[in-house]
């Protein structure tokens, strides 16, 4: 649906060049929710703004349904943009217009008839659940309500894609949750492809099918959310996942435990989350597992659990236990302070 090919963007400052994007290639599949995550300054905002050419690439191609947007004329680009909705961190509504006007005006300016405008406003205000606010001005709405209006405004053009530029970053956790549910519903029920960028791992975890991790203008890791969550390859990806579980173990305890046996992080995905693999270990091998921390969360409706476990016992028994766990479908990693590393 959307494809970025070898995108590079260089911002020319007075004295120096800033490379915001470095040879980025990504493919967003039709019907999916694709998340791009990174710390601020990673280039993710530049990237999403290239999907509709709000930002022009220095080199590379942006393809939408197979057409290279960088080759289109101004009018052709406007037509394509009408098929791509976009929402922003700061909502970007007209302060001087009512909710109705905010949704209706862009439709009017793109030549939609009056009766069709009324029909669409009614339909999409219902989807975002603000039927009773049509006459309100943005200043009278909460942050979450403003974002709902922005979503209705974007949907009213009946786009194929919705681009979300840090759409939940200005909202509190409860409102974020509600907006994410709405985006998920839009994806499922209206079949709209979503490309979103965020710096919050829980956004990716809750609604994305696929994720790309960005750092210093490069995509350093990408794949399905389950894969990236269960087998993160890069330190940045690990840090993001770590931020979600918050499974730090105090340094003193860590030192003490390291002298004896093995300290591991066990990840359970989907079906394996239900098996009593850890209980079996104590029966089969001469090890004593103690659970130091743990958490279970939903990854796009699949349970994803993580336990920090100390396996007390001889080196060889602990290794056997680890092998057994791996065979049972558990992902085993050694635990270090502030992160985890794969065990071979």
């Amino acid at each position, binding site marked *: 649906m959307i494809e970025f090919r070898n995108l590079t963007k260089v911002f020319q400052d007075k004295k120096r060049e800033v490379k915001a994007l470095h040879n980025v290639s990504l493919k967003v599949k039709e019907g999916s929710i694709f998340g791009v995550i990174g710390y601020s300054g990673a280039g993710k905002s530049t990237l999403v703004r290239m999907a509709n050419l709000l930002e022009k690439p220095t080199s590379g191609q942006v393809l939408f349904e197979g057409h290279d947007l960088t080759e289109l004329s101004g009018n052709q680009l406007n037509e394509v943009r009408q098929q791509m909705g976009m929402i922003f961190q700061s909502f970007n509504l007209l302060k001087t217009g009512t909710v109705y006007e905010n949704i209706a005006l862009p439709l009017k300016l*793109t030549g939609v008839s009056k009766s069709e405008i009324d029909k669409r406003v009614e339909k999409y205000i219902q989807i975002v659940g603000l039927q009773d606010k049509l006459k309100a001005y943005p200043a009278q709405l909460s942050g979450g309500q403003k974002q709902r209006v922005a979503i209705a405004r974007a949907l009213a053009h009946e786009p194929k894609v919705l681009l979300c530029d840090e759409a939940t970053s200005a909202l509190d956790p409860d409102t974020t949750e509600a907006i994410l549910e709405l985006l998920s519903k839009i994806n499922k029920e209206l079949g709209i492809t979503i490309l979103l960028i965020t710096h919050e791992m829980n956004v990716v975890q809750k609604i994305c099918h696929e994720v790309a991790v960005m750092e210093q203008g490069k995509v350093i890791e990408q794949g399905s959310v389950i894969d990236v969550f269960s087998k993160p390859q890069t330190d940045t990806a690990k840090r993001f996942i770590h931020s979600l579980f918050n499974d730090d173990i105090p340094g003193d305890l860590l030192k003490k435990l390291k002298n004896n046996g093995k300290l591991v992080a066990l990840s359970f995905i989907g079906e394996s989350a239900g098996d009593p693999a850890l209980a079996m270990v104590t029966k089969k091998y001469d090890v004593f597992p103690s659970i130091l921390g743990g958490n279970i969360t939903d990854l796009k409706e699949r349970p994803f659990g993580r336990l920090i476990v100390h396996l007390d016992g001889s080196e060889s028994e602990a290794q056997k236990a680890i092998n057994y766990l791996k065979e049972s479908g558990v992902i085993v990693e050694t635990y270090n302070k502030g992160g985890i590393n794969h065990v071979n």
Partner: protein
Amino acid sequence: MLTSITNFINNWGVEIWEAFIDTMIMVGVSLTLSIIIGLPLGVLLTLTGPGKALENKVLYQILNTIINILRSIPFIILLFFILPFTKLVAGTTIGVQGVIVPLVVFTAPYIARLMESSLLEVDRGVIEAYEAMGIKTRHIIWHVLIREARPSIILGLTIATIGLIGATAMAGLVGAGGLGDLAYRYGHLRYQADIMYVTVIILIILVQGVQTIGNRVSARLKKD
């Protein structure tokens, strides 16, 4: 007391009324023409500025310089300085017709600057949202940029109108009449203080009225 007021009105009523009408014509016509010239100039300044949608260094610098030069010249000097130009455009350099040209040359650059600062206040994000929806630039200028800036534009125009009322007072020097001229000729030159006081009071009421209306309209348009 009552008779003296009646006498004053009988003696000066017509003159004051005519002067008032002259002032209104000068202000009204010059203001309209200045908005027609100044608003697009303000839009152009805003859009061609550094880092803006239609960035154009050459055009921006030319406009910037011309506006700065015109704004540095005091009206009383400008009035005489551009006499040949006035003659060329208006066909005359005297009377109400002759003073409109210098008033517009004086006010339009001022309005352009005021419009520029109003338009620059508009949230860049809203404009971007409309660009992202594939809306044409000319629609964005009118329906987003100017619309969102309206409360601030009205306040700017209020300031410009009051400046313009002040400038018309000097128009008497080319025989254009008006309230300022009446106060100057009779009040100052002929020592008829009562005429001066009455015209000054009328000017005060006029300025107060314009400011109040400006503030009210702006507040009504403002929705946040």
